[in-house]
Every structure is written in structure tokens, then in C-alpha cells.
């Protein structure tokens, strides 16, 4: 399983992708940096930055993780790894873990950029650590959705964009139940519970989702288990090529 995870990690995380996707994920940091010294206060800038990150980071992770197995299927290399004595449960776990690990690398890059942007504005370093939880939990949650989606659907990138843009950003603001399914909001709820100070305007980002580390982690855990079960089923029941 470790070999398979390493294989995914090596194949997905090319230098070009690393630079491009970290740059995309760092748009929020640029928002923070550009707002320094402006007329808007921290309470107004932060929700905008978090929402921006919610879109750009989600898209970056989507681009990266949806290809974990989809690239192998479309490229014709899946038989090399599929035809190995690895139980499908382990194969599914390694695939999601590989996707999550690469997404975390992008998340850490985006977080570092955000920290640098915040420090330039005089924010205390201790306040920035909570942001890491935001990117890490989101990376894991998104990978649990996008890796199985990539294996199952030929137009997975399109479906993924539908989830990020339509479901999370539009429908999620209007429908209470859908907001609870938003990986980004779940990640923000964990962040909001950990962060020493959270601007009140962040409530707009969270919507009906209440801050809480335990609840957030349970939700991410459920998403992980469901993603793993779906992928295991797909690997067993669906054609691999």
C-alpha cells in the first residue's frame, strides 16, 4: 500500500503542477496582502479571503486529485497497478491517501502564502497556525470525494466543478442541508473553533454550519469512509479499462 501511495504521489505531483496549483490556491493570500493599508478592516477582508480560498483551493485540489485514477484509466496505465495482489479495500485507501497527500502539499503551500500575506499586514504569527487546519482538513475531505469521482466518471472535472461552484458556493448559501455537505464549510468550522480570534463576519462564510473541531472531524471522517466504500465498490464491480 505504501508503494502504491508513493507511486500516486510521485506521478501526480510534478514540478509544474506544484507551482501552478499553489499559485492558484494562493489567490486568497494575494487578497489579504493587497488589502493591507486599505480602507477595509480585517473583519471585512478575512471572509472574502476565506471564500476566495474556498473556490481556488477547491479547484486546485479538484484538478489534482480527480486525476489520481482517472489519468491512469484514460492514459492506459491502470492495468500496471490494478493487476497486483492488493485487496481492493487497500487499493481504494491508497488511492484516496495518495490524492489527499498531494492535496495537502498544495494546501501547505497555500497556507504558507497566506501566512506571508498576513504577516506583511502585521498579523501575529500565532494567529496563522489555525489556518493550516483549514487547508489540511479540506484537502482530505475533497480527496475523499474527487478520487472516487475521477475513477467513476469520464467527465469528472466537470462534475467536480459543479460540486465546488454550484453546490458549495451557490446552493450551499441558500439551502441549509446542502451547506452541511460543503467540505469547505466543514473545514472552516474546524478552523473557526481553533483560531484565537475569528471576525464575526465569518458567520456569513459558515452559514448554518456551527464551529466545532469534533463535529467537523466526524463529518470529514464520514466523508472519508463513504468515499473509500464507494471507490472499493467501483474497483470491484466496474470495468477498470
Amino acid at each position: 500500500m505504501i508503494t502504491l501511495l508513493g507511486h500516486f504521489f510521485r506521478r501526480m505531483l510534478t514540478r509544474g503542477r506544484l507551482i501552478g496549483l499553489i499559485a492558484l490556491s494562493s489567490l486568497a493570500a494575494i487578497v489579504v496582502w493587497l488589502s493591507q493599508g486599505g480602507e477595509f478592516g480585517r473583519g471585512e477582508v478575512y471572509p472574502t479571503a476565506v471564500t476566495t480560498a474556498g473556490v481556488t483551493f477547491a479547484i486546485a485540489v479538484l484538478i489534482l486529485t480527480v486525476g489520481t485514477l482517472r489519468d491512469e484509466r484514460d492514459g492506459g496505465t491502470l492495468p500496471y497497478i490494478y493487476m497486483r495482489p492488493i485487496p481492493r479495500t487497500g487499493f481504494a485507501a491508497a488511492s484516496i491517501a495518495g490524492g489527499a497527500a498531494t492535496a495537502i502539499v498544495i494546501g501547505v503551500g497555500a497556507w504558507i502564502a497566506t501566512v506571508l500575506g498576513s504577516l506583511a499586514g502585521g498579523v501575529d504569527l500565532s494567529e496563522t497556525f489555525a489556518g493550516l487546519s483549514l487547508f489540511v482538513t479540506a484537502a482530505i475531505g475533497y480527496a475523499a470525494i474527487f478520487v472516487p469521482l475521477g475513477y467513476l466518471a469520464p467527465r469528472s472535472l466537470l462534475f467536480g466543478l459543479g460540486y465546488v461552484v454550484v453546490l458549495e458556493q451557490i446552493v450551499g448559501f441558500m439551502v441549509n442541508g446542502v451547506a452541511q455537505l460543503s467540505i469547505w464549510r466543514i473545514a472552516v468550522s474546524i478552523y473557526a473553533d481553533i483560531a484565537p480570534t475569528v471576525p464575526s463576519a465569518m458567520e456569513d462564510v459558515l452559514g448554518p454550519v456551527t464551529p466545532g473541531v469534533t463535529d467537523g472531524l466526524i463529518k470529514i471522517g464520514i466523508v472519508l469512509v463513504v468515499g473509500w466504500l464507494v471507490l472499493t465498490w467501483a474497483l470491484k464491480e466496474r470495468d477498470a479499462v
Partner: protein
Amino acid sequence: MTDTVVITEVSKWFGFKVAVSDVTISFGSGVTGLLGPNGAGKTTLMRLVAGLQKPSQGKITVLGQDPREHVDVYRKMSLVPEDEAMYERESARRFIQTMARLGKIDDPVGKTEDVLRIVGLTDAADRPLGTFSKGMRQRAKVASALVTEPEVLLLDEPLNGADPVQRAELIRLFKELGAAGRTVIVSSHVLAEVERMADRVVAMVDGRLAAVGSVATIRAAMTDRPRQIYVECSDPRRLASALFRTEGVVGVHLEADRLRVEASDARAVADHLPRLAVENGVRVTDLQPADESLESVFRYLVGSR
């Protein structure tokens, strides 16, 4: 001979397209050639045996187990896929080592060096696969399949892109594996290629089995088939009347400025034609088989079953 791969009443369809239709056959040790024109269903059958696709109907066992259910089968079965795709940025050595590790074999590093030597890629082993020629890629794929020392080896068009020397080497290797008691199933659309390495041939067309037997049996079936030959000459009418009286000729048709000769025995016609031309003072300028494609041969075989 113990059957290692058993296919029972297997069909596979994709929507309305039937790729494999009600195939029942088994394979044992030695080299078996899976022969058929493009689109005959060879690759789909290979993928079904490999467990990459699930049969729509029927059952497949490899070494007594269903590969879709028991992944342990993959300790003893390997596939060389037809697709050219590989991990372009990885070196051949790293690629094969990874496959060896995923195959959970002992001494993956040592075994990798062994198979690199067998396929003659030791010197190029550290180059990225993306820089390899088609023939070198084929050899790297074969090496990745051999590294786990499989009992069942599935080779989908393994000689594609290999030059004549590499072909000879690979054919020798496959024959050695077959002689050592491994089950080697090689798909190809080139009869001459299969003839050089396989003891037994399974011919497929339109997803169905067309013929099963020794290479000699398939050859005989193909020779018995009526054939059509186009003959271009200086006086088609005169030659046509002479051909009508010739043994092995079933019919002669005048088409524009050439003849289409239907023959029950093409070889006899070929033997008689020069003599007839000389006797009748006709100059033959061109002689072409009208339906010599492998596909037409296989269709004949299917029709005769």
C-alpha cells in the same frame, strides 16, 4: 495438460455492441496464439481474463480462481497491455522495481536487474520511459510482466513496434516460457507471427471463436477456402476462355480491363496460369488476390463452422 485459464460461456457487451459472444475455451501450459483481425474481440477477451473487465455473462477462472474476486491471482498472472502508454517520466528501472514491489515478490531489486538483462534493457534502464522507442517500450512492458515470474502471461500484441531482431528475441523468450510450463497467451493479427511461436491457435472474429487448433489445422482451413484473384493481361477475353477449362477455376468475370477469377484451388490456378498465358499468346501484367485480408479468411472460417 492442466487447464490454467478456463473461460465458460463468456460474453461481454458494451451497450448494444457485443465485443465477445458466448466464448468457451481453456488454456494450459505452452504458447497459445490468439489470432484475429482488429476488432475481433481479442483485447476484450484478454482484459476479461486479466480481470480488468467483468464478463456480462459467463465465468472465467485463472488457476482456479475468479480474478475479479481474488486479487491473489495477480501474484501468478501478468499482462502486457496493447496500449503504448507508460509512465513517461519514470526510468525503466524504477518502473519495473515499482511493479515488482507492488507484486509483493522477494528481492524486487535483484529480480528487476534479471528481467532488464533478459529483455536487453540494462544499458538504457536509467533513461525515462518517455525517451524510449516503441520497441524498447514493448520490451520494458514485457520486463514488467516477467518480474513477478508469472505462471500465466497474457501478451496483447507484444511484438508491435519491435524490429526484426527484437521480434526474434521476444519470440524465443515466449517459446522458452511456454516450454518451461507457463501458460502464455499471445494475441496478434499476424498469422506468420503467431505461427513462429504458438503450438496452438485460437482464431476469433466478431467476438466469436472462429477456429481452434494447431497452426497446421488453421493453415489447412485457410488453404481450402475459395479465393478470388484479379488478373490484368493484354487480352482478357482470350485468357478467360482458356481459364474456364482449367482445373480449380469456379468462375471467371470480366471487369473493365481485367479478370476476376474465382478459384476453389488458388495454388492450381497459379500453377496453370503462366502456361495458359504462353499458349494463348496473352501477356499477364498483374496478378492480385482480391480478398486476402486476414479478416476475410476469418469470416470464411466462421461461416464454415
